[in-house]
């Protein structure tokens, strides 16, 4: 009897966050990885170097992060799901090509395991200082998708979802982990490959002479052939017409820009990803993400034990900002607290969508140490209505 039960239970493995990310990527069908060593993301590159050859995919260590990102886009255009991983300083270098991937619509996944900045900063200490850089780091107006894990399992799961979204929208997707989530180890039960739903970029269904490389099929996402498929077309970071050729015509530029935004903004309902805890009767809600959501969870539990009606909403999508979700929280709470390991990147957005009927409180820490449950609890107790 006992033995039988053991067989039924899927096996649990002890994984580091960065390892879980690689496992997710490979299960999602990532078959190209280019990277450059940087703390605290190096393990992603190391585990990829070890595991990628066995999948038949390609691994390469490039000369810098600019090159890693260029190679990732090149591989994506050749039809292969591609990824890179880095931390703050490398993320800054990648911004040039993140913009290229937005403009040329090359699906790819960029993992930024955040450390404290600016500049070289605190290489082995956590931070959430790259939230705005993930949104606006590359020059020019653009849309972007940014996901944020708060546990080892979520790092695994959101890596898969990052690939799915990048393929669905033909856009770079940034996975914003932090040093704590990247380096901590947790026991996780991974699903088997057959239980994972994967999305793949839309492919042209018409012959090459009918295919319009950057035309809008109605979804805003043009079907994407791979180099070598017989659909010879031009890819550029310049503004381009529907055939991909450079243009400065304002009607063509405007149409391209509108489509690049709307392909994601038209789908916002599908991008409201969050977990909520104890929110049904909460008069005060903690809105948190990444490692801070873990401290938030503990603080909320302790506050509940003391009889305070507080809840927690943990964000998994940071960008595009989940306006609908946040508005609902603001409408149902008297106060919200947004603890962050930065000077207030998300709280600023929460205040922006607040319609004046809720007090938005902040708790910011920028000394390279994590926000503790005690600090959140203390703020909750002080401000509890």
């Amino acid at each position, binding site marked *: 009897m006992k033995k039988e039960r053991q067989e039924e239970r899927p096996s649990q493995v002890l994984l580091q966050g960065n390892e879980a990310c690689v496992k997710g990527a490979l299960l999602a069908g990532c*078959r*190209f990885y280019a990277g450059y060593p940087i703390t605290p993301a190096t393990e992603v590159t190391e585990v990829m170097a070890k595991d990628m050859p066995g999948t038949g995919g390609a691994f390469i260590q*490039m000369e810098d992060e600019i*090159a890693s990102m*260029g*190679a990732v886009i090149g591989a994506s255009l*050749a039809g*292969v799901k591609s990824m890179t991983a880095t931390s703050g300083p490398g993320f800054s270098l990648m911004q*040039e090509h993140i913009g290229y991937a937005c403009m040329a619509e090359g699906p790819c996944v960029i993992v930024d395991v955040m450390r404290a900045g600016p500049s070289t900063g605190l290489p082995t200490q956590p931070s959430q200082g790259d939230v705005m850089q993930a949104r606006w780091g590359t020059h020019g107006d653009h849309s972007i998708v940014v996901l944020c894990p708060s546990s080892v399992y979520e790092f695994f799961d959101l890596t898969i979802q990052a690939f799915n979204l990048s393929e669905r929208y033909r856009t770079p997707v940034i996975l914003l982990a932090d040093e704590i989530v990247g380096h901590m180890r947790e026991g996780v039960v991974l699903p088997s490959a057959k239980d994972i739903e994967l999305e793949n970029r839309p492919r042209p269904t018409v012959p090459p002479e009918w295919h319009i490389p950057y035309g809008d099929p109605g979804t805003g996402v043009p079907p994407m052939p791979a180099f070598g498929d017989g659909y*010879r077309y031009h890819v550029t970071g310049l503004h381009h017409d529907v055939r991909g050729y450079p243009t400065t015509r304002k009607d063509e530029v405007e149409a391209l820009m509108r489509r690049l935004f709307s392909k994601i903004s038209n789908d916002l309902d599908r991008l409201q990803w969050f977990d909520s805890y104890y929110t049904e009767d909460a008069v005060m809600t903690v809105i948190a993400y990444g490692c801070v959501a873990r401290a938030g969870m503990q603080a909320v539990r302790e506050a509940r034990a003391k009889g305070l009606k507080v809840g927690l909403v943990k964000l998994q999508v940071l960008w595009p900002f989940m306006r609908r979700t946040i508005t609902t929280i603001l409408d149902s709470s008297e106060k919200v607290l947004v603890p962050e390991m930065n000077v207030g990147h998300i709280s600023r957005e929460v205040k922006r969508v607040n319609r004046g009927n809720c007090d938005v409180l902040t708790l910011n820490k920028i000394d390279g140490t994590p926000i503790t449950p005690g600090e959140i609890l203390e703020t909750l107790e002080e401000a509890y209505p």
Partner: protein
Amino acid sequence: MRETSHFVHKYLRSSKRFPHIWCAGCGIGIFMQALIRVIDRLGYSKDAVVMVSGIGCSSRLPVYVDFNTLHATHGRALTFATGVKLANPDLKVITIMGDGDAVSIGGNHLIHAARRNVEIASFIVNNHVYGMTGGQSSPTTAYGTKTTSAPYGNLEAAFDISGLVEAAGAAFVGRTTVYHTPLMERLVEKSLTKKGFSMVEVLAQCVTYSGRWLGLNSPVEMMAWQRDNSVTVEKAQDLTPDELAGKIVIGVLADRERPSYEDEYAKLTAEKLKV
């Protein structure tokens, strides 16, 4: 001439809104035709050719030709090309770069591509100037030359592109001018058929900018300058360093067998998949 127009129609994009951006008398078009001729002669399928470029006058070349084309970012063509080649080693990957593009902002990528030896046929069109932005000094501008960013004369020494790439380990290195078209075609062919990383430096005239500052006022004068100042690798062997000063040494500068990255990686993958 009939043959020429045949190539034009076979390889230039009919869907592209011409004209191109090159000035009258520019040397890049001469190189483009040599490249197309060799590709045609080698019988490559247009579907199997991926042409990647950076930013600059010569990097506009892929816009006009009917292959899989990727107009990348300034200096980074080789990084995109590396990704394309490793993702699908069956593709014939070619990069077109300029001197500022490949050697200044892309210098790091260039030396590492040569060292790494991924099979990419790269062509650097060297006109010794940033043409697209209006004639500023590039890393190959000669010492003392006046440019729009060195109005009192260039204070820096020039890079020897071919020497740099040869030292970094490229499998094949050649240099030509656009005046020497038969040699240019031979080098392009050797480069395209070479296993591993190859680079051909193509000296081309920029009539509008470098010509103006050098006092050479027409494409004919500039190409005559290319003719009169070039010596072949074979002849150069008999010349003293003093005699070689200021000369352009043209021909095959390096041709060696080295395992390519993708071949080494394929071996590793085969081993892992067997296990």
